[in-house]
């Protein structure tokens, strides 16, 4: 079944740890996105990619980094986590042409807590 997956779903870690949030999709989509969402707030785009070896920073500045070595995989890394990074991180993907260009499909999210 075509879908988009995120792991872990929940993560509690201490300050200074390096973490990687995984995102994979089986829909064959070229475009992928990372959003940050705080409770009661809108989604903010932090990274996006239009294809392999293509990554761009989004509208909200983030200390995280991303990579796109394979079409289906778009991991997000924090080199040194801090309490200010506590948030929900949502991964999304969309097709490349026509109406599908704008329809984004979301994963279940990773809720990160940094102590």
């Amino acid at each position: 079944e075509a879908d988009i997956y995120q792991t872990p779903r929940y993560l509690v870690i201490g300050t200074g740890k390096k973490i990687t949030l995984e995102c994979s999709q089986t829909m064959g989509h070229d475009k992928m996105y990372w959003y940050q969402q705080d409770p009661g707030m809108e989604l903010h785009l932090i990274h996006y990619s239009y294809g392999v070896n293509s990554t761009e920073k989004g509208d909200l500045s983030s200390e995280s980094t991303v990579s796109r070595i394979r079409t289906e995989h778009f991991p997000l890394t924090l080199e040194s986590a801090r309490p200010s990074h506590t948030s929900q991180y949502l991964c999304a993907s969309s097709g490349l042409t026509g109406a599908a260009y704008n329809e984004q499909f979301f994963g279940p999210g990773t809720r990160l807590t940094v102590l």
Partner: protein
Amino acid sequence: QKEVEQDPGPLSVPEGAIVSLNCTYSNSAFQYFMWYRQYSRKGPELLMYTYSSGNKEDGRFTAQVDKSSKYISLFIRDSQPSDSATYLCAMSAMGGTSYGKLTFGQGTILTVHP
């Protein structure tokens, strides 16, 4: 001023009520309009998708876009407790560097009580 404004609510209605959710926007370049539904501790799921002005109906859900007023609406008929969720509007421009990038509203929290 935010590009997309959405009343966060919360909105509480009895089962069977008609619900109206709204967003206003300021960017006249927006051409694609979407409504997402997000259950607690889940990712948003696409509910409705419209291009430019007009209405679109899907079962109990109707999406309306009025580009002249920069105003979009989502109507839910015969609301059910299972409709309780946060509803997010999202918009996208056509062409240029914004092509394919979505701008979201804050989300409206809806509770439908039996």
